[in-house]
């Protein structure tokens, strides 16, 4: 029992500092989101707790009589969080992001799964070179591509519509996903497919019935990673779509919450923290498979 406790203690001792460092930005975002302007801008205040200050115009202090609250939360305001829901199209941006992300993930899987499988199994020595070639296209930055692509978007009549993002985002998700899946498919023994073929399966059936079910970690990794790339993308989102109701989070938040040289820090923190929570939970729920997916092709 003592040895188990000691092992656990050592594990927590090693992991604990990492967890604190990684969770710290989220804590800071959370604390800042509820700070009053007076508290936030006073350099004498510790930034990680709340301090009494004069409320700025429009700031409400709903907890000011609740003196039992920790970290001085009675000095917190909800005005800046409520600002993003009442004065911006925040929920619409979240919805747009979900729609674009979902569709791009579907398109990515549609192309990357067969491409990754083909490169892993059917292309022989060429597979590796083509795979690296595809991955290299992922490395071309959007800042170079947005000008020529804006012409394409315009010709297709997709300017200022979220469909332009659905069309463009796969240009960086598919190469990465193909490369990732190629490595993953290589870890699956070819004998499994051979056995299925011997038993009368066609190549497609073997793929669907044998390979895909054991490729779930890799596919999940692609789903989560592609979705994250879509949520984070900024250059295309800001240049192809200009209507505030058509924005995704990455474009809408800086457009509406950075006004000229004035940053609405608390609202910015809230607006970025809110979507990161479900994404973090999603990562956490599939952590083991995510790790398996990423490291699947690492040793071959």
């Amino acid at each position: 029992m003592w040895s188990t406790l000691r092992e656990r203690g050592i594990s927590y001792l090693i992991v604990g500092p990492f967890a604190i460092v990684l969770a710290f930005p989220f804590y800071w975002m959370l604390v800042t989101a509820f700070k009053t302007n007076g508290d936030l801008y006073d350099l004498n205040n510790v930034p990680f707790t709340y301090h009494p200050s004069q409320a700025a115009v429009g700031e409400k202090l709903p907890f000011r009589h609740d003196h039992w609250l920790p970290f001085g939360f009675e000095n917190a305001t909800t005005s800046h969080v409520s600002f993003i829901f009442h004065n911006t199209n925040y929920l619409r941006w979240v919805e747009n992001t979900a729609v674009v992300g979902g569709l791009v993930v579907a398109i990515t899987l549609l192309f990357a799964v067969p491409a990754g499988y083909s490169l892993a199994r059917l292309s022989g020595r060429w597979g590796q070179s083509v795979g690296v070639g595809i991955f290299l296209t992922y490395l071309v930055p959007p800042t170079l591509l947005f000008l020529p692509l804006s012409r394409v978007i315009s010709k297709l009549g997709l300017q200022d519509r979220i469909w332009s993002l659905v069309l463009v985002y796969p240009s960086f998700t598919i190469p990465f996903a193909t490369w990732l899946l190629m490595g993953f498919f290589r870890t699956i023994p070819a004998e499994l497919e051979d056995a299925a073929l011997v038993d009368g399966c066609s190549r497609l059936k073997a793929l669907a019935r044998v390979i895909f079910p054991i490729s779930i970690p890799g596919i999940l990794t692609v789903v989560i990673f592609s979705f994250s790339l879509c949520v984070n993308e900024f250059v295309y989102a800001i240049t192809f779509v200009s209507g505030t109701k058509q924005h995704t989070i990455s474009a809408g938040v800086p457009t509406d919450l950075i006004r000229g040289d004035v940053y609405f820090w608390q609202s910015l923190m809230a607006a970025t923290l809110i979507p990161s929570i479900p994404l973090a939970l999603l990562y956490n729920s599939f952590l083991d498979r995510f790790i398996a997916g990423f490291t699947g092709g690492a040793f071959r």
Partner: protein
Amino acid sequence: MPENDDGLEELGLSKSLTRRQVLRRTVGGFLVLYGGALPKVAAAGVPKHVHRQYKNTLKIIQWSHFVPAYDVWFDKTYTKRWGDKHDTDVQVDHIALAQLPARAQAEVAAQSGHDIFGHLSPQAGLEDQVINHKEIIQEVTRKVGKVSQVGFKSCYNPRTHKWHGFPENYVPDPIHFRKDLWHQVGLKPSTWDDVRKAAPKLKALGHPVGLGMSNELDSNMLLIALMQCYGAFIQNAHARPSINSKHTVEALKTMRDIYKNGMTNEIFAWTAASNNQGYLSGRLSLAVNAISIIRSAEDANPALAQNTSVAPIPRGPVQRLGLEHVMGVYTIWKFSKQKALAKRFIADLEVNYQGAFKNSKFYNFPAFRGAVHNYTRQLAADPHKGKYKVLDLIARKYTVNLGYPGFSNAAIDEIFNTWLVPQMFAQVAQGKMTPAEAAKAAEHEFKPIFAKWRARGKI
């Protein structure tokens, strides 16, 4: 327990809910939320002309104004009324200040986009992509009087005789300083020499002056203004580079001294927001910026606002001469299909600029002075004890265009947007070059830029 959940069990996550259950509940919740709205939509039926159907559409893009109420007024009041009158659906899109150039380039590359593009600096480099705005200038001049010199020299090309933009507004660029701190050191920032003398004392008090030297708008504006006060200019009145002068050397020496004795190296990483944040946090004793600082302080920290003075740029050994902080320029692309409507919209907005002036909290000064009546009386009537009266003085006497004494031409545009002036100052402040070497190196960089645009027939 499903067989695939052993990993989760180790993480302590699967005891109450399996992964499959989490997924099911998430998808279920999503469907319930969205499905719940369906009966409501079905009951309401197909909307029948919820919005009025307009004959035309006019698309405008401009920055997200630092005063949120300005955008509300512009998007929901002014443009709606104008649209109703002209049977036009006016669609206004906003974009962050720093993203404007990239968006403009994307629209040029695509040859499609908005009918009216609102820039925040003169756009001589885009001259070939825009219409001649002369017609609008003439109409507005007829109705409210002459355009200001700042507007004229920012948007007119004397070589091609083309108005490459419409000067909608310009923003005076005052200094903001803390009365209590400057009182403590026994000085006032009336001249650059005062700033040089006070900077070390203010730094010792823990409140340095904040004068940026980095690749960003505010540093660019401040440093060119400082040069002007010393009689140094990027070009002369005939669009010939004139940076390599003893005046530039003196300006470089001054800023080097202020940095070495009175600032910290954060000014090399300055952003457009650094002035505001540094000042609002109570750390800076002086900042050069448009009135966004004092307006933010009035809301966030009234005590600081009361303790702040707004004044014209300090005088140099030659003169007191600042720049417009922002030049609001509307352009109509050649590819726009609504050129006539766009012209009408811009002309009407300028002729009736009263609303814009007031709703921007006196940030936007009309490029046509006659467009706002009782200009000075309105500034004096601001509830903050006449603090903004000085803006009129700054706008009239101490504000010139970028590229003064010449025009804001394409070469100036390129030098401004490639941050060559802040880089020259930073090289000297960091001790990498002497002031004389930096002025000579800048001239070496400027000459080919002027030659290129001269060869293209733009200057």
